[in-house]
């Protein structure tokens, strides 16, 4: 039995996006896969990954932050010490520590550094492997991007094919689901804009009303926004509303989403859940959201991507082109041309500032193809994906000046001079643990 541990301490969406790595590990012969995550997500993890052993810890804590220091210490230590003890007792062959977070680094202290991929703790020093360092560099070229699920999956030498991760999207008969907001409010459409889109979709695609309901999804924090949306909707649609914001547990959410025909959503955990279940997604990506990084995984999904020159931006920075208190890239979502485009598929109707992308897969992972609107970076992205494929041993491209430039930009002296366990050579050699000494031809 080969035991693997995946440490995923981030949020709902990240947990779902860990799927390709988890499946790749599960696909190994005689493997036993463990997942360490925040306790709030443990029930969901058991639903998503029934064959995986779940190890909940206390990592998130917005609610706990209001407690006294002593109470916090008691709570975290009482829960985490036994959980850490249990983890330390399992003879893992490999630990995939996914998040660039101080919590992940500290948790890695439980394990021999040579076993850990991603974010490593070496006798008090945080270190990061070559694959993650490379990702930090390409993150400055966000318009190109690699889907985060693929980034995590490629910690594995040969992840399962992208097309096999999620079922192809297919409607399930219970109409339209609308996700009210994600964690980052600027990425979400305000109720008024959202109401226009919902109305248009329901009118244009009557089959979405066949289920007899319009399902609103979100946390309890979105109850107010859901009411606002209902107020903005015409009565014929408002009467269909089933407002489930804050009303579902994880299994309820999985069940509800799994019955829908289409999910209209910003970049949210529920979007990834829909993709996981094979429910078609129509995603609205604006502000800091970029579909090539975190778009819905699998075939049969669409992303309406804001494509202003400044996109994708940083959520933490004020929008310099803000108008009426709203980010500049919001306006195309409110333009009448969008609905016209959705009804006719006629490219000329698509408002400027938007590109419609359809999900697709290649040898590297998830990608998107522009159906309408510009994709100015398509050629460069293709080269970037070739570069990464070559780096990962997942494909070979024709030599070109652009590839050469990418190599010069993305590789640094550190990669070249001091190759580590995550370097491309080590990867191609199957992550042999004796790689440091035996890597080069000269040493063979």
């Amino acid at each position, binding site marked *: 039995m080969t035991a693997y541990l995946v440490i995923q301490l981030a949020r709902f969406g990240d947990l779902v996006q860990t799927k390709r790595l988890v499946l790749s590990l599960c696909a190994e012969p005689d493997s036993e896969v463990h997942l360490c995550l925040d306790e709030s997500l443990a029930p969901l993890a058991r639903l998503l990954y029934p064959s995986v052993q779940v190890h909940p810890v206390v990592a998130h804590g917005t609610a706990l932050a209001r407690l006294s220091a002593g109470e916090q210490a008691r709570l975290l230590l009482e829960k985490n010490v036994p959980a850490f003890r249990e983890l330390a007792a399992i003879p893992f062959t490999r630990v995939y520590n996914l998040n660039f977070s101080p919590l992940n680094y500290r948790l890695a*202290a439980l394990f021999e550094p040579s076993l850990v991929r991603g974010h490593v703790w070496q006798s*008090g020093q945080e270190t990061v492997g070559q694959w993650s360092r490379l990702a930090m560099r390409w993150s400055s070229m966000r318009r190109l991007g690699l889907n985060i699920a693929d980034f995590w999956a490629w910690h594995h030498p040969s992840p399962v094919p992208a097309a096999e991760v999620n079922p192809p999207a297919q409607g399930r008969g219970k109409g339209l689901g609308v996700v009210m907001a994600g964690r980052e409010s600027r990425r979400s459409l305000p109720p008024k804009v959202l109401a226009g889109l919902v109305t248009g979709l329901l009118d244009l695609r009557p089959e979405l009303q066949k289920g007899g309901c319009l399902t609103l999804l979100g946390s309890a924090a979105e109850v107010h926004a859901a009411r606002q949306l209902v107020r903005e909707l015409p009565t014929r649609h408002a009467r269909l509303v089933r407002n489930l914001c804050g009303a579902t547990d994880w299994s309820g959410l999985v069940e509800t989403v799994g019955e829908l025909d289409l999910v209209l959503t910003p970049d949210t955990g529920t979007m990834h859940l829909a993709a996981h279940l094979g429910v078609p997604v129509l995603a609205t990506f604006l502000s800091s959201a970029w579909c090539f990084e975190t778009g819905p995984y699998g075939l049969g999904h669409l992303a309406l991507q804001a494509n202003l020159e400044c996109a994708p931006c940083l959520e933490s920075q004020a929008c310099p082109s803000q108008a009426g208190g709203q980010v500049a890239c919001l306006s195309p979502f409110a333009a009448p041309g969008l609905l016209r485009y959705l009804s006719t598929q006629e490219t000329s109707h698509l408002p400027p500032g938007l590109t419609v992308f359809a999900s697709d897969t290649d040898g590297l992972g998830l990608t998107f193809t522009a159906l309408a609107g510009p994709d100015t970076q398509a050629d460069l992205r293709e080269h970037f994906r070739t570069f990464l494929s070559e780096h990962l041993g997942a494909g070979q491209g024709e030599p070109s000046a652009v590839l050469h430039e990418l190599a010069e930009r993305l590789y640094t002296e550190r990669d070249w001079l001091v190759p580590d366990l995550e370097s491309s050579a080590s990867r191609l050699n199957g992550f042999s643990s004796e790689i440091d000494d035996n890597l080069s031809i000269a040493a063979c």
Partner: protein
Amino acid sequence: MPERKGARVRILVVLPLYGGSLPIGRYCTAALRQLGHLVEVFEAPDFYPTYKALKGLKVGTDRLQYLENSYLQVVSQAVLAKVETFEPDLVLAQAQAPLSIQALKRLKRDGVTTAMWFVEDFRLFTYWKGFAPYYDCFAVIQREEIFEELQAIGVQNALYLPLAAHPEVHKPLELSVAEQRKFGSDVSFMGAGYANRRVAFRELIRHDFKLWGTEWEGDSVLEPYVQMDGARVSSEDCVKIFNATRVNINLHSSVQAKDLVTGGDFINPRTFEIAACRAFQLVDRRSLMPGAFSEDELATFGSMEELQDKIAHYLANAEERTAIAQRGQARVLGEHTYAARMQTLLDFVAERLPGWPMARATVQAAEGLPPELAGDIAALLDRLALPAGTSFEDLVWAIRQQQGKLGELDTAVLFLDEWRKLYDKKGGQQA
């Protein structure tokens, strides 16, 4: 264990790349820990092999100097990074510690208190003039003249801090017969072959004499007496030599051979170390000696004639040797340990720098925990040799200093620390 006076503080000891002040830096580190302070060490010797490798390049002088300076700047930056993470109350630099002026300016700008213990002869190692003004406190092993010079260049906080012994290392030993045979003799000297010693020791070879240490090459008279082919002697073996020798000669070094017994001012570390071993020594008189030892605690000499006479006398009088050695040891253990020196230094810093150390908002490591968890934390503190009242922040650092993979409680404490930082930043409130 010596008792700590004042607050428990965080100290970053910056060791030199190599050299005589390196073991002293290590003794200071151990002493500060004994005093109950949280000490982190900048291991500059780890960087020395690379520095030396540059010298093997066989390139032009200008190029080599450029590379050496650049490398030392990198090492200096590494010290700054350590300071940034550890947030010490005091950076204690040993002589030759790799801190550039640029780095010292940065520390001053950031309000980090710095001190140097300059355990060198200021007349020989004159570079102190360029660096001393950038330290908040500057401790020296000499008096008067250097104090005036320090004041002249703007150093207000100068401290006389003589060398010392570290009783955990410098102590009486029960030697085996083989060790006694290897390390023992009637008369010996342990140290480097300075010019005055080379001449002086020619007069000692009529005794059962052994010469230990380095830099004795090329002296045909003394070479037959040099032990271990003139190899560097470890601190452990030095202590064995002191213990095994009837009369340890301790002649302070001089680069000139005109006056063999120079009558200089500072007291070398060997004086304290031999005494701490309850071993007998004949040491040349120094002007600063009366403040450290009384006449019956050390046997001294002022000339080579006196040395010869006293060697003969004390070789013949074992009881006198023992009595003096016992008194000398008592004085060292009472006053001249590195723990005592570090306490003096910290008292001085606190006296001269109002508001030092700055108060930290601290929570005790076990505060607010239920009995079982508090017991686990107490056991962890015990394992890490930390006192019961240790703050949570200091516990985190002590855990971080451990090597290899950690246990579940250690990891959970590190995790808790980062969790607090994360959620404090996000506006969480802590009582």
